[in-house]
């Protein structure tokens, strides 16, 4: 069983977590955004092969959402961070 490092709780079994998919951000100017910006946000994804930035939730734990960098080819979680932390050391293996 793989363990994922929750930025709030530390290492826990992967079955406690749910993946919320690729980290995306909502168009800031909701009224000004055109159809392309909205459909990009709704449907289009990088779906990266390699290190992919995602949001995860510690569903059966603290229930917090957090950011994770995960290699989609090896499943290794390289880094986890609180959503509010833009930079910094983060958590995880730094692989």
């Amino acid at each position, binding site marked *: *069983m*793989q363990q994922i490092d929750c930025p709030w709780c530390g290492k826990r079994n*992967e*079955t406690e977590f*749910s*993946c919320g*998919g*690729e980290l995306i951000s909502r168009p800031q100017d909701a009224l000004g955004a055109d*159809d*392309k910006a909205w*459909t990009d946000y*709704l*449907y*289009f*994804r*990088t*779906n*990266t*092969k390699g290190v*992919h930035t*995602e949001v995860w939730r510690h569903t059966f734990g603290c229930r917090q959402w957090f950011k994770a960098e*995960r290699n*989609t*080819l*090896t*499943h290794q979680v390289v880094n986890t961070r609180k959503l509010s932390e833009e930079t910094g050391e983060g958590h995880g293996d730094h692989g």
Partner: protein
Amino acid sequence: MDSYSLFSLVKHALSGHKNWQPAWRSPKLKPHYDVVIAGAGGHGLATAYYLAKKHGITKVAVLEKGWLGGGNTGRNTQAIRSNYFYPEATEFFDHSLKLYENLSQELNYNIMLSQRGTLTLAHSERELEGLQRWVTAIQINGVDSEFLTPAEIKELAPVIDISKNARFPIAGGFIQRRGGIARHDAVAWSYARGADALGVDIIQNCAVTGLDIRNNKIQGVKTAQGTIGCERVGLTVAGHTSVLAEMAGFQVPVTSMALQAMVTEPMKPFLNTMIASPVVHVYMHQSDRGELVFGGGADTGNSYAQRGSVPILEENARAILELFPCVSRMKLMRQWAGIVDVTPDTMPVIGKTPVDGLYINGGWGTGGFKAIPAGGDTLACTIARDKPHSLIEKFSLERFRSGELVNEAASSGVAH
């Protein structure tokens, strides 16, 4: 090409089966082709076959990163059906089923199509109402589907517990009798052999590593064996759709995920139909070898790893036991996964792309084995005429910009 028949079997038996010809050549990559297809799964091979057969385009190469049929086409659980909800989906998948019904004859290759029926179960009154609506929609779309009572289900598949005490009691179900399974490898091999006989070059161990695009038009393809020129390119790479689209500078709304399946040890005939339960989220059939083949949900999160995680394996096994407690002492023999590219509405992305001369066939997600003949037929037509075939107009990449999604999430529900 050797024609396969009882006569040829007898003839070769007399010489100890030592003189069979390989089913396809292993040609060298040529410097130029009219059409290059990336990915030798069922969809790529079928596209090449129909390009040559129906459109007379024979200067075609199918380039495969690994070995032909080694992707999802050789990893799926073989369910074939056309019982979708919306007319555009039903029409497309029924076209596919009709092509499957004649494929062994057309390609002179036994694909072992077994129309044993696909049965979908309901476990509550509310679910039954949903199912009845679905059955009616399928019938209105002109495809066979029949509602079944618990007693009729018991008669069809005695192994199902229809008692009130069952963990998931059976409220009813529906069957598409023309649905069933076909041998997945044989589908890839038969199209490969058919395409090869018409002059198509199938090149294995030859990954596409880049696309040569100038003035927004395809000029050629970079491959592991060198750069070649071509007029048109078809992408049929399933889980790698995003990777290839990125080479061409655009995105496709797909998520690549690991979908796993597993088989038990073989046993005597036990189940003569394909059974799926959307609520328990699992499906199962018995292979001709006697193994129980089953699968359920995909693994969480994006993946390119081609292996399934243990927690999801346990989840799928648990689901099977809740539906069929009687198989609890069967041993699991093998488990594996393929990388499927799932779209937001679970329907494919097939047709033209923003680049001239570049066509796409992907987004089949968890259910594109049943679509192989129609996916190949319609993509070949689209490449030949540079205009989407009428059956796939609704499945363009454009629909995610215009908002005309075809949401079949419910009828694609359990991943098969």
